[in-house]
């Protein structure tokens, strides 16, 4: 089993006619993802990578029975594309786009709370159920099927951790990159809930980083509601206050909130072993299984 996506998921790619959209559509299809349509205003009637393009997401969803989308739309138009996807409606929307204005995301987030859609991202690598489907830009070859769920705020860090897992034959149910922006759709707690409810996920790896309080909130959720064991990793122990470390969300505030220390402590208090290195995370997962 898996969470959010599997081989049945019918995917529409928003922005399929752009360079990135086209390239990753091909990559996704090569991996086995069931991409059924593209959606680009004004490009309806065309074909990209063998799938039909529609002018609106609603048309694509209606005509091709799509239930998920992956968004490669440029940041200036991405907020509108997300509203369109929520309104189609779709069950899952994966926003790869980096650099969406924060106020646009606050509005999208407001609308999201009135829907039953899962939004993953933005500014994320997407998610993958190894051997079934990937929605996004993750390199499929490093993943393997198994019983570890993974949720992470960072893209390449996810790859690093997955690589360590896969090399020890610790395969994954689903790996979700939730994105590094200050305002994202699916957060740690949402993902942990999904993994907790999935009988095939026997352990979860949670990769957090400095900034915000999502990891602390996740720790409270784990302590209170989770039976599935969790191992953790937190990036940014050496980040100075007030500096943005690449991700718009990765910033330790001047008043000292959002530090790695506070997150690690919260997780450890919730019984979550936190690795000092990605290798140690794999050690912990082996112990937990």
């Amino acid at each position, binding site marked *: 089993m898996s969470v959010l996506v599997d081989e049945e998921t019918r995917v529409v790619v928003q922005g399929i006619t752009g360079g990135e959209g086209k390239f990753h559509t091909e990559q996704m299809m090569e991996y086995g993802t069931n991409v059924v349509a593209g959606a680009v205003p004004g490009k309806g009637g065309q074909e990209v990578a063998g799938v039909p393009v529609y002018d609106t997401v609603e048309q694509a969803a209606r005509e091709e029975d799509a239930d998920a989308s992956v968004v490669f739309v440029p*940041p*200036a138009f991405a907020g509108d594309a997300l509203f369109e996807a929520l309104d189609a409606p779709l069950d899952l929307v994966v926003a790869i786009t980096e*650099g*969406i*204005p*924060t*106020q*646009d*995301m*606050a*509005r999208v*987030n*407001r*609308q999201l709370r009135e829907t039953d859609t899962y939004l993953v991202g933005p500014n994320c*690598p997407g998610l993958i159920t190894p051997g079934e489907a990937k929605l996004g*830009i993750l*390199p499929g*070859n*490093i993943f393997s099927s198994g019983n570890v769920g993974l949720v*992470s*705020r*960072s*893209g*390449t*860090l*996810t*790859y*690093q951790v997955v*690589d360590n897992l896969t090399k020890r034959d610790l395969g994954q149910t689903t790996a979700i990159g939730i994105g*590094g922006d*200050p*305002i994202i759709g699916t957060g740690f707690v949402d993902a942990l809930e999904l993994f907790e409810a999935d009988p095939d996920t026997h352990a979860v790896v949670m*990769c957090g*980083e*400095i*900034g*915000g*309080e*999502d990891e602390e909130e996740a720790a409270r959720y784990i302590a209170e509601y989770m039976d599935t064991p969790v191992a953790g*990793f937190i*990036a*940014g*122990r*050496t*980040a100075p206050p007030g*500096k943005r*470390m*690449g*991700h*718009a*969300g*990765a910033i330790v*505030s*001047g*008043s000292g909130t959002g530090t*790695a220390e506070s997150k690690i402590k919260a997780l450890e208090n919730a019984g979550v072993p936190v690795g*000092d*290195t*990605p*290798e140690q995370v794999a050690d912990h997962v082996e112990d937990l299984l």
Partner: protein
Amino acid sequence: MRLHEYQAKEVFADAGIPTPAAELAASVDDAVAAAEAIGYPVAVKAQVHVGGRGKAGGIELAESESEVREVADDILGMDLKGYTVERVLVEEAVDFVNELYVGVTMDRGEGKPVAMVSTRGGVNIEEVAEEDPEAIAREHIDPAFGMHPYQARRAVYEAGVDRDIANSVARVLQTLYQVWEDRDGSDAEINPLMVTADDEIVAADAVLNVDDDALFRQPEMAEYDEEGEFSEDELERKADEYGFDYVRLSGNVGIIGNGAGLVMTTLDLVDYYGGEPANFLDVGGGAKAERISNALDMVFSDENVDAVVFNIFGGITRGDEVARGINEALEQFDEIPKPVVVRLAGTNAEEGMEILNADLVTVEQTLEDAVQRAVGYAEEVDQ
């Protein structure tokens, strides 16, 4: 992107928030002329992007021409926390009886804007927030509707602002929110909002930070950015030009990687294995040869750096392209300036490893080994 005080005040004043009479000056003579036009006393305020200017000597009062001449001369050209002061704002000194705080920012946790009011203005509001959170009234704003007028009033009354000035303060807060929304602000702040003896209110300082990701639709704000800083750290300015996410730190191990989380992890591992990171440098996704070369240039230009670790986990980024970029960059040197340890994983990593010129770099298979090797090199150089 952070506006200077004088720029933020321009924006606030245009929106209808009262600000003191003021003029920008780049020389002592200009400062004196400005003060003469405005009338004494004036405040002479360094226009640099650092907090706590007052305590650091960047803001002085002057009661006369000679005093203006003296303080402007002191402040212009001074080094304020690493920034050279090239311009001062000469401003009418407001005779106040009270100092308030009003601000708007994005509450990440809630995913919503939040407006704040406090009667404890004129001091570091983050300290107030820690010592006495109750002293700041907060209103979360629904981003679909924007700020309702009753919310501005409620925050003002909740903060305990005098009823005589409550409506004026509520209007300022409402306007500040509108500016924040219209200008794609990340933070907007007036601290202090001064209250005079006859119940006038005046924005004596002004902060407006704009969401970098929204500058494409804020051409006026982007123009302000052009007038921006004159004397940033040279390396950080270079990073801006190259379009890197870069943060300079104090250690001696230079770090280059792709992806914020992985680069942060590399820094953490340098620290874990006993080294000290010299920087955070993220080349981003899908980096091609030129970017790789620029990244190496950045790190080599940092005289603190004694060794470099180059850590790539390819997703969109291809190991073979990175390897070619590294070779190209290093082949220009007769002698490699600092030892470089490279670790490639993910997309086309094997091809990359083969391409890498082993005479120029040290290749490692795992992140842990690469970091330890670089820390070792740095220690050797350091001795």
